[in-house]
């Protein structure tokens, strides 16, 4: 039995991270404590740097990565926000850093409990984002994250819900080190900082391509940004391939971008991400008892967003109900926007409803999800496909 934070730390240990830098924040702190225990107890040969801020934590990781070390950091909420500049930097510099984000609400006002506003706010920083539904997925995703990041040179954020997973014990299979070593080879960077072959990284780069000292035309800033976008677009195949390989070694396959529960015959689909996708399965059970053909699409990878896969899977739905533990203020929940965007131009004619739930640790009950679906079903008969703004499950 491991709680989510312990599962994350085990994943980092098994991945043989070489430089770990972190700053404590609730509910992430036990990850850093467990990792420092591994390092001091010589269970993990790594440099553990107890930095003075999250901004520095990620700066330590990015520079350690430029000399060829495998790096890890973990944070939550305000810590992730404080890292924002460095999140852009890590992705822009194409460094395969892995970060665990223990999802927590962000202030003001203060709140230490779970929602996904923190990582969703960082979606445009160029990181791959993977969300775990349970503690086994946390451990497995971290190991996969290194293989993905080091293949495509894009940093990976593994997100899991604070308290709901981070402080809740569940059965977790901790694979043997030899098996992980077989799956995840040592990091061999394509280029490192080395006086034997001096290079300058992250120099001022003009918008247009520019000729180097040998007369070769080199990329401008715009081309570098294109390549980052291309890397994320193409990373879908790597993510699925790595997930399949993981299944071959450990008998737990992740050859998908999202989890499907009873979607084959479903005309009503609940969409949720993280641990909420497990609660959605309970809600689907209840709705099926009432005679509805309900399935669940549990988003696993939020960036790159699996537009084509989602469109294909949801094409025949009559009703899609998206639950978001985040809000893009002035619009709607972020995953709902992505689902709508994925369906544009497809043959889908589904009614889409969005519910904002669970902010700041507000409990989300399966019963409430059932009620939300039943309420949404009423609009199917009205032919009212879209609403301007989401509905909230709260007291207002």
């Amino acid at each position, binding site marked *: 039995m491991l709680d989510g934070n312990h599962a994350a730390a085990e994943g980092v240990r098994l991945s043989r991270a070489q430089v770990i830098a972190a700053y404590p924040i609730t509910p992430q702190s036990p990850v850093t404590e467990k990792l420092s225990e591994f390092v001091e107890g010589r269970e993990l040969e790594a*440099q553990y740097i107890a*930095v003075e*801020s999250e901004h520095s934590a990620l700066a330590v990781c990015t520079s350690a990565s430029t000399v060829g070390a495998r790096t890890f950091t973990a944070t939550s909420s305000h810590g992730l926000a404080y890292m924002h500049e460095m999140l852009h930097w890590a992705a822009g510099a194409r460094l395969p850093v892995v970060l665990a984000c223990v999802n927590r609400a962000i202030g003001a006002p203060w709140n230490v409990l779970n929602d996904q506003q923190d990582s969703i706010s960082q979606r445009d920083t160029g990181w791959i984002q993977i969300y775990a539904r349970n503690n086994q997925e946390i451990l497995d995703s971290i190991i996969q994250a290194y293989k993905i990041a080091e293949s495509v040179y894009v940093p990976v954020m593994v997100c899991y819900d604070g308290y709901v997973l981070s402080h809740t014990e569940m059965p977790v299979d901790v694979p043997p080190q030899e098996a992980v070593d077989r799956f995840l080879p040592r990091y061999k960077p394509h280029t490192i900082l080395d006086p034997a072959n001096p*290079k300058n*990284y992250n120099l001022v780069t003009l918008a247009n391509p520019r000729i180097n*000292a040998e007369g070769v035309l080199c990329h401008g800033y715009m081309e570098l940004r294109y390549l980052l976008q291309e890397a994320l677009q193409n990373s879908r195949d790597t993510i699925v391939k790595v997930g399949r390989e993981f299944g071959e070694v450990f008998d737990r396959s992740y050859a998908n971008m999202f989890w499907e529960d009873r979607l084959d015959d479903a005309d009503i689909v609940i969409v949720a991400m993280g641990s909420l996708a497990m609660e959605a399965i309970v809600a689907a059970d209840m709705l099926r008892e009432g005679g509805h053909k309900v399935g669940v699409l549990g988003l696993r990878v939020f960036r790159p967003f699996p537009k084509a896969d989602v469109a294909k899977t949801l094409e025949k739905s009559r009703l899609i109900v998206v639950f978001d533990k985040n809000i893009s203020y002035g619009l709607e929940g972020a995953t709902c926007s992505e689902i709508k965007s994925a369906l544009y131009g497809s043959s889908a004619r589904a009614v889409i409803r969005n519910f904002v739930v669970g902010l700041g640790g507000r409990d989300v009950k399966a019963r409430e999800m059932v009620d939300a679906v039943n309420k949404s079903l009423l609009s199917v008969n009205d032919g009212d496909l879209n609403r301007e703004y989401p509905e909230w499950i709260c007291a207002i």
Partner: protein
Amino acid sequence: MPSEGDYAMKSTAVNMTEKEYLLPGNRTCPGCALSLAYRYILKALEGQVIATVPASCLTVLHGMYPVTSVTVPCVNTPFATTAASATGLVAGLKALGKEGLTVLAIAGDGGTHDIGIQALSAAAERQTDFLYICYDNEGYMNTGNQRSGSTPLGAISGTTPILGKQQNQKDIAAIMEAHCIPYVATVDASYPLDLYEKVRKAKTIRGTRFIHVFTPCPPGWSFPFNNTISIGKLAVETGWVILYEVEDGVFRLSEGSESVARRGNLKPLREYLVEQGRFKNITEEQIEALQHWVNARWKRCLDRAANS
């Protein structure tokens, strides 16, 4: 304490390495003291270095992709992160078992006194094994000369445009000394041999080493670019800059300032101030306050030198 013999081989223009690590034709302004200082810093480190640089004039010196004027490996890093970035380099090299390289963190006064001080203070407290050099041109010169924590009282800058700055600068070397690190030194780009020797010494010491380099800035301070060296020397002769080392807590005046001490008197600070357009609106009261501050600091240093 190292014995006299350790440094008997004094560096001179003759025995200094001929190899250049900073190529000619970089993008700094004419008369840039940073460009001079960096040349000797890199010579002293003899190429066995990985540097990290935040947003600053040094970024400009390093050039624009895909061309650089520097032949040592370097990672540019966000403004606040110089010392954290250097920490990452040190940790990464250690994790990979690579030895024999100096990690050089080098930032301006904005990047050191202001936005970078949190990361620097923490790295020094962790006794991270790197050499941190602050080149101090007393303002945000790369962004066009705005006031920093190192801009002197009375100096006009982009953000103190009429009245001049109303506060004293902070003494960053003293702040760093308070971190109980093994080596703190001050140097002035007009004294390149002193600079060269101190960097060479710093490179042999383990733990956090801090060197403060005074780098006059012709456009920012409004003086003709052929006066960089004389302004730097006047700074020492007036006591505005005091050249010293603190090695394992033991204070020692360095030759430039020691010879001023031997002569027995500082030149009046006014002689230094009138050479620079940035002090054109300074008041008599401010000059008096600055002179008082310089005198007090000078006396403190002489007392320390006599007692150590």
